[in-house]
């Protein structure tokens, strides 16, 4: 029992440590401040989304739409800022309006998913597969098949949100850390986290225990939508543009991170810190592949696949016997 527990807890950590050791051996710059900042900052997008995904999955749901949603929100945020630029001028006010738009759009998008899943009682897989197609289409349409770009003057104003920070720690890292901490606290210390797990474990029981099951489910999707908005706020300053290729496959990465971190796909148990480790593992695989030569780039996907499976083998439960 305790050995099993330890492995499930230690598994992802071991995988992460192993990757770090490999990285450090392969390249002396791997542990440089610059590289660490790079890896952590870029993990923030998927990371912030994956924290929200942890709640959705814990409560027995799934969201395939987050990647397209991020693209759509990024496009919207850019359109709003470009549109208001003549009125508000390139300054903090406009940035704030852009952020607000992103958060609002995320909230609404999360609400729409939640509504269709809870009130209309459609499988989450189908709903979010549908909205995934819808958002991807909409951003392509908004961009007329091309790229939506933030006005160039505005870009310099907004750039610091991704590239600057305080005390040498960049904003995306700070925001990711805050979101993760908040998520961990809510999962473990707030009634909402418990209710999410209860709903995922057995929604009948939860309902009979006076938990408002639909409300909890709905909130997980809204919460995730808002976090997609937050991730987008970090993303737009980095690239200053959005297109139909923005956020492609983010949903799979986020879900993979959640599961690598030890959350159960069937719901009932979630671990936010595990998700953070899952996200870091996925980012590091990419980073390490870039540190080395000699492997055909065609095989990157294969190596990623193998490492993902290995990372999870480390934490599998013992052969069930009862």
């Amino acid at each position, binding site marked *: 029992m305790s050995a099993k527990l330890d492995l499930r807890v230690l598994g992802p950590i071991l995988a992460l440590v192993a990757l770090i050791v490999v990285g450090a051996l392969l390249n002396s710059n791997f542990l440089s401040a610059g590289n660490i900042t790079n890896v952590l900052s870029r993990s923030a997008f998927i990371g912030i989304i994956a924290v929200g995904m942890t709640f959705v999955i814990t409560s027995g749901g799934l969201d395939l739409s987050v990647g397209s949603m991020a693209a759509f929100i990024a496009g919207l945020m850019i359109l709003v800022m470009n549109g208001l630029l003549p009125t508000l001028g390139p300054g903090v006010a406009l940035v704030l309006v852009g952020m607000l738009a992103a958060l609002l759009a995320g909230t609404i998008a999360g609400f729409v998913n939640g509504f269709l899943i809870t009130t209309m009682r459609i499988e989450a897989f189908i709903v979010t597969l549908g909205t995934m197609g819808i958002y991807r289409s909409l951003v392509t349409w908004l961009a007329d098949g091309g790229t939506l770009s933030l006005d160039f003057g505005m870009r310099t104003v907004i750039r610091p949100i991704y590239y600057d920070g305080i005390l040498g720690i960049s904003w995306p890292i700070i925001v990711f850390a805050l979101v993760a901490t908040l998520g961990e606290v809510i999962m473990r210390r707030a009634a909402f986290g*418990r209710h999410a797990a209860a709903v995922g474990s057995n929604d009948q029981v939860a309902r009979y225990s006076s938990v408002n099951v639909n409300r909890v489910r709905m909130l997980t999707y809204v919460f995730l939508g808002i976090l997609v908005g937050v991730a987008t706020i970090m993303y737009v300053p980095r690239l200053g543009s959005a297109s139909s290729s923005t956020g492609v496959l983010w949903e799979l990465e986020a879900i993979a991170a959640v599961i690598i971190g030890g959350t159960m796909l069937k719901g009932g148990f979630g671990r936010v810190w595990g998700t953070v480790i899952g996200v870091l593992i996925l980012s590091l695989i990419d980073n390490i592949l870039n540190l080395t030569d000699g492997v055909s780039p065609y095989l990157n996907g294969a190596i990623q696949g193998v490492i993902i499976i290995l990372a999870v083998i480390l934490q599998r439960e013992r052969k069930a016997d009862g």
Partner: protein
Amino acid sequence: MKLTLKQVDRSFGAVQVLYGIDIVLAPGEVHALIGENGAGKSTTMKIMSGYLAPTAGQVLLNDRAVTFADSQAAEAAGVVLIHQEFNLAEQLTVEQNIFLGHEMKRGLFLDKRAMRDKASALLKRLDCNVSPTATVRDISNPDKQMVEIAKALSRDARVLIMDEPTAVLTAREAESLFTQVDRLRESGVAILFTSHKLDEVKRISDRMTILRDGWVVGQHPAEDMTEDAMATAMVGRDVSSLYPVRTRAVGHDKVLTVRNLTVPGYADGIDLDLHDGEILGLAGLIGAGRTETMEGLVGLRAATGSVNGKAPFPNPRAALDAGIAYLTEDRKERGLLLSKGMRENLTLQSLSDFTGLLIDETAEDAALTRAIADFDIRAPHRAVTVGNLSGGNQQKLLLAKTMLAQPKIVIIDEPTRGIDIGTKQQIYEFIHALAAEGKSIIVISSEMQEVIGLSDRVLVMREGRIAGELSGDTITEDRIIRLATGLDGRKDAA
């Protein structure tokens, strides 16, 4: 608070299961609801506590008609139901389950310490020493039941309704529960409970209502009713001789020889022999490891040692091929597919007997017809989803399913849990009939009387080992208890 049902009817689709039910639950009174399996006890209780709405008639609280939108509304009004089947989130801890939906908070955050303390206190009151931080999936059935009870107690019920709360409890645990019931009665709570253990009904209730086929057929003060009278009122015939007389002697051929069977963590060095036509009782306290031993024997758990001179079965299929079937004590999680129909459940274990290239559905239907008759399964209709069968009828279906595989050796874990007394008699007769055919049976039961009444020979387990063997006249309640608790028998039990 007083709760009244007035002329309550309830139908499921075209099938009516309750007819004009009148019951009054008075504060400070323990009311028992008894009746055969499927009589409508659980349905009545669900209506009282807002889980189901009546199709006709009224629910009154303190003489005022109420309509509970759902169970939360009932609970808010002080009416709490403990379900017949467990109603716990398996992946959550004991403490998380007890306070689910009613978490204690300090500011924005959960007050975990307070909840853990209160959970401990509640469990202690019930003499249950399961840890509040244990995951429910990992605790035993009796402990789950105690957690259910603790959960209900934590809700400060004014009307407490308990649907077969003692079905999975031992006499000792049931006694702790009744102590709490006495306390609640004194504090003016109105209590309704049901049980198929009529001695308990006698012991704890002040009044009783007897249901038959959805009708109230009698309401009496408890002191007016003997157990026999209750049984007769429920079943409509005399059931005083519960245990049939053996008609055939135990055979001489050993059909099963187990040596040094060890299930890591649960059982250690178990030896046992079984003869043809024998009924072997396996007694012991809950947690003694009887279930795990037998699960190890039939390949459901990793085990070492020898079974008939060979290694233990690698999987239950191999055991079944060797003619050994095990009937689980946990019908909800391990016994039946609750979302499927009776036919699929009945034939699941012996599907190959119904399959040439394809499944012979006509033969399956015929088997179901036979099972319904043989085991007296009362279902609203043949296509019913098994989860909608009454608890006792689920148990009968489970028995029918195991027997359909035509095992030569049957291991039955808690054969009559939740079974009404009339059917109990039928099941005992059935077990005897099997033995008379030369089949051999191992019965695990926490009901002392059942072990004594049925068995030719009894093995008593304690802490994973065989503490002693009793046969013939030595099979007495006293001897079993002494062995089970360690007063007699092997002292080296670890």
